[in-house]
């Protein structure tokens, strides 16, 4: 069965940095790069957060939570 070759470099699955084949053991993710990579992967979710939040607040569940929060606040 034909198998695809592996490229000489592959991105680290945790931080996305390009790591040369055979050098995986010596690779250490940089915190900043790992954070950037995670934020980039979640960019669609982050970009749509405000829109989704507003829509949820208009839903029956959101409206009830608003009512309940207000009642709790008044004691």
């Amino acid at each position, binding site marked *: 069965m034909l198998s*695809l*070759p*592996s490229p*000489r470099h*592959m*991105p680290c699955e945790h931080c*996305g940095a390009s790591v*040369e084949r055979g050098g995986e053991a010596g690779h250490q993710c940089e915190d900043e790069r790992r954070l950037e*990579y995670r934020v980039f992967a979640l960019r669609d979710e982050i970009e749509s957060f405000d829109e989704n939040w507003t829509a949820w607040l208009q839903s029956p569940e959101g409206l009830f939570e608003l009512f309940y929060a207000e009642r709790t606040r008044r004691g």
Partner: protein
Amino acid sequence: MAVLSVMKIEGDPDELIARLQTTIDPVAARKGPQYGGISSTVVRLDDGIKIFNLWQTEEGRHQMAADPEIQAALRTAGFPEPSFTGYEVVWTRSAIDGAKALAHRIADEIWTQHKLEVIDEVIASDFVGTSPTDGEFRGPAGFRQLVERYISAFPNATMQVTEIVGEGDMIAAHWTATGTHTGELMGIAPTGRDVTVEGTQFDRIRDGKIVESHGLFDALGLLQQIGAVPAGAPAPA
């Protein structure tokens, strides 16, 4: 320090050239590179020939002159005693050096610094290029479209020429490119992954510009690195 030896041999030039070609030249062509010979040029004069030999070192030139096979070829040729002058070379420059500089400029200024205005300076109006991912592309506009496509997918793209050789009007280069996939590429959504890709390039140069370029690069590896194609298991050591 390179040295240039200039040797004049007097006599009938046609006869001298014929003897040179059948006696010394075949041996010199084989032996010269072993002793650091860079180039050899023979010119015809009214009263003989002149031979200009460029050497990497003076020592290499002497070793060549003392080589037994060269000595035997000289005896066979039976040339009259040549007049000889040696010069220390200050510098040499050839058209191929300019062609190599052109390839470095494309990697440094266009692909790494993203100075797209340089394209019109280095790509000929009748340019034709081929690439495994883009097929054939023509002219500075076609080259620009290709560069823009990759730079929009990898805005921090860099390219480094790692090896380059040249002969005649052609250069061949090996390069390594890097970048972070933060823009759409061939319909593939950005992944945020860093990629490293290697390729080779054959370019033909005319009048200081590239007129033809045929590139091959690890397109499969690129697609594997951005997750569009599964990566195979590493080859056994």
